């Protein structure tokens, strides 16, 4: 497999890093502006500030007044969006190539001239709380928040990106604006342009729009290294519901750790290869019919779904197995079967045939997940933010070089019982009864059905 071509790299004097890649398959361009700030950079009491700031950065700037935001990119047929996660915040526009200047103008405005109107800050608070409560409607999201919080006791990866409700209710406009000014400076950003563009011209236009942006003193990321976990941790969410869910999270290697790619192969063998694109990979289900956990849990009639997640991150994050218990399944039996497979991986590693299959899967996924200017631009910026764009460019080679022994060694280090946090969503009957001791994943008698 040939690895992705290297993008053109440039810097402005103010520290802004620019990555430009020509792709001429469609008359489109995708612009992403990445900031090295995410929920890991938030102090207690200010959780969720990065995400709220992201929302505010769609609410108008000095030169794009609030009423002009609507339609500013749509008139080019374009789409725009943004997201915040643990290591990063990013904004994107994808539109026809003639909109390149407009896209750069929007991002330059967003970097320096956000309005942060107090009334808009207040109005957005309820939107974000609505987003949080919408997530709470999903038992799996509730469980994930509990598991992550239990897995991390020192590192800020433990709190949810959307923040804790109490913090969202107390945060002020000044908190938001202070965060914005601290982190939204050119020397903390990477601008990525991919598409039907001329690199020289694109860089010149970036200079035009961003050249006057004033650099700042970027706060040094304080690292609270997560202490080694010394024993299994357990959490349970007990709430009215219909279905039981299991999550098992292991502390996992960071993207630059030598164990990362071997663990990616181990995950492919356990649950099928997902690829590495946070923006697009989830849109195509993994090839997992012959994966070990799928065969044991789903074909074994214990679960209706199983998935694995190992995302590339700046610091060590989590390798998480998520399981939807099948109606009527014993929770103990499901857990026992899942741990048997995970322990076997830690003990025995993988076979040569499994290594070959995992490599093939990952090779195919890398092709599939880089099929648009938007997806390519995402990957360049994402990896630049957590490590370097070079890491993205070398993924194919790194996967090719993974040896069986390295998978076994990495799995033995990661998939230890003492390194895991186990979480259950235990559905409680609708009448408020307590099914303590009830170990079936199915609905207890008395669950109220809908008409």
């Amino acid at each position: 497999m040939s690895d992705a071509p290297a993008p053109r790299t440039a810097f402005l004097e103010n520290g802004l890093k620019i990555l430009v890649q020509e792709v001429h398959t469609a008359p489109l361009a995708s612009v992403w502006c990445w900031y090295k700030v995410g929920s890991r950079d938030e102090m207690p009491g200010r959780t969720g500030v990065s995400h709220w700031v992201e929302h505010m950065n769609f609410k108008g700037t000095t030169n794009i007044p609030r009423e002009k935001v609507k339609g500013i990119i749509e008139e080019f047929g374009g789409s725009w969006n943004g997201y915040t996660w643990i290591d990063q915040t990013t904004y994107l526009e994808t539109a026809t190539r003639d909109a390149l200047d407009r896209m750069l103008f929007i991002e330059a405005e967003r970097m320096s001239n956000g309005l942060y109107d107090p009334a808009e800050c207040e109005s957005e608070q309820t939107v974000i709380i609505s987003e949080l409560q919408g997530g709470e409607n999903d038992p799996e999201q509730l469980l994930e928040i509990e598991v992550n919080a239990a897995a991390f006791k020192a590192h800020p990866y433990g709190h949810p990106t959307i923040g804790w409700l109490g913090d969202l209710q107390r945060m002020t406009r000044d908190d938001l604006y202070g965060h914005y000014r601290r982190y939204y400076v050119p020397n903390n950003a990477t601008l990525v342009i991919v598409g039907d563009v001329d690199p020289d011209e694109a860089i010149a236009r970036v200079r035009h729009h961003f050249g006057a942006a004033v650099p700042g003193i970027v706060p040094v990321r304080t690292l609270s290294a997560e202490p080694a976990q010394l024993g299994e941790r357990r959490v349970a969410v007990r709430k009215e519901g219909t279905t039981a869910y299991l999550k098992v999270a292991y502390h996992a290697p960071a993207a630059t750790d030598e164990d990362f790619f071997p663990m990616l192969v181990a995950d492919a063998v356990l649950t099928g290869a997902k690829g590495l694109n946070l923006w697009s990979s989830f849109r195509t289900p993994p090839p997992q019919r012959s994966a070990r956990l799928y065969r044991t849990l789903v074909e074994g009639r214990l679960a209706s779904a199983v998935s694995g997640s190992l995302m590339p991150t700046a610091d060590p994050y989590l390798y998480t197995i998520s399981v939807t218990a099948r109606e009527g399944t014993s929770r103990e039996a499901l857990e026992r079967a899942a741990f048997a497979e995970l322990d076997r991986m830690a003990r025995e590693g993988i076979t040569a045939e499994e290594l070959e299959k995992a490599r093939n899967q990952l090779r195919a996924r890398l092709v599939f997940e880089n099929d648009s200017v938007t997806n390519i631009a995402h990957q360049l910026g994402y990896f630049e933010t957590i490590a370097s764009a070079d890491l993205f460019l070398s993924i194919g080679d790194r996967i090719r070089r993974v040896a069986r022994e390295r998978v076994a060694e990495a799995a033995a280090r990661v998939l230890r019982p003492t390194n895991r946090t186990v979480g259950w969503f235990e559905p409680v009957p609708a009448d408020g009864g307590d099914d303590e001791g009830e170990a079936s994943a199915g609905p207890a008698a008395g669950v109220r059905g809908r008409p």
Partner: protein
Amino acid sequence: MTTDAQLGLSPVRHRFENGATVIAKPSHVAPAVAVSVSARAGSAADPPGFDGASHFLASVIDRGTESRSGDELAELLDSRGVSLTVSAMRHTFVVSCICLTEDFSTILALVADVIRNPSLPEADIATRRGEIVTAIRQDQDNPAMVAVEEQLAQLYPGGHPYGRRVKGTLETVGRIDRRILRGVHDARFTPAGLVVVAVGDVEPARVVEETGQVFGDWRGDPVVPIAVPSPPPVTGRRQSVYPMMNKSQADIAYGFNTIARRDPAYYAFSLMNNALGQYAMGGRLGDNIRERQGMAYYVFSAFEPNLGEGPLVIRAGVNPANVDRTIAAIDNEVRRMADRGLTAEELAASKRYLIGSMPRMLETNAGIAAFLLSCEQFGLGTDHDTRLPALLGAVTLDEANALARRFLVPERATVTIAGPYAQRGA
């Protein structure tokens, strides 16, 4: 620079003697091919009393064929990084995937085998039944799903194919057995009406030839068209609440039945809907409910015409304390659109957006394949991408506003609410 998008897609379309159609579009963006195969099956054709049969068939059709075991299929797919997505929609049953170019022949033959010769193993039927039961139970705990399913059940009552749940119910799924699944396959999977679409790094001549090799000798009678009656007219406003007090947020669905996809008014309706509830994060609804009042993380309107008259459903997720205010705001926007219509600027903006977004929509192999399949399903022609800008461009303000007056009547809205909400006075 010349691009495919400027020239139009210009796919190759070929119909075989047995009635099967293949559509091929080369694209060399990546060494990959998107493949979709569609049969004229779907939940609208579920046998009476067996709602969910097509969905059930979708879960089991690729678990073994007459010549390959489920394990063999799994190995063939997994070793190439391919996962089949099998979907039963209202009128179509689609098997789709993306594969590397080097695997195209193998995967096309495998998909053909799955479509033509599924063995429907009893053991897999039992396994998949448990998964479907779990999925239905998950849906019952999902306010968004409850609000929408109840909305459709009310808009399309009396066993109408668009009102039935695609997954079926716990009761009907419990009744579906191998005989029923085999019956659905025998009745609905025939070469006449089959559509194969391949977009990617493979030449059309090869696609046509290889499709002929794997489907050309298939024989069968044309399928019986699925009758889709007009839903009964809605004469008054309806509002139903489905309390789910274990949840944090309430989901609102607010809808009307509308027109069929082939209705000439489709393009005007699309533009009107875009301005109402889509343009720039939710159109007028987003401006009011999310941007000005800060009540919802999501609010939008979805217009889903089909072979029959489909719905327009406005959706919002809100704090239970804001349910009444949100419904009042939706009423206001719907009434304002009906009474005063779109402005010329709004219509022009939506036209620019929908026309301008076509290169994005048609950028990836999978995006092109989905577009071409839809064109074939609705008989729009292989040149629809080149005609679409003119069709949208020709829509007049009067046409769009007449549709708003005719369909957007709050007094005839169907409102369903699921979540931690108790209706006042109820």
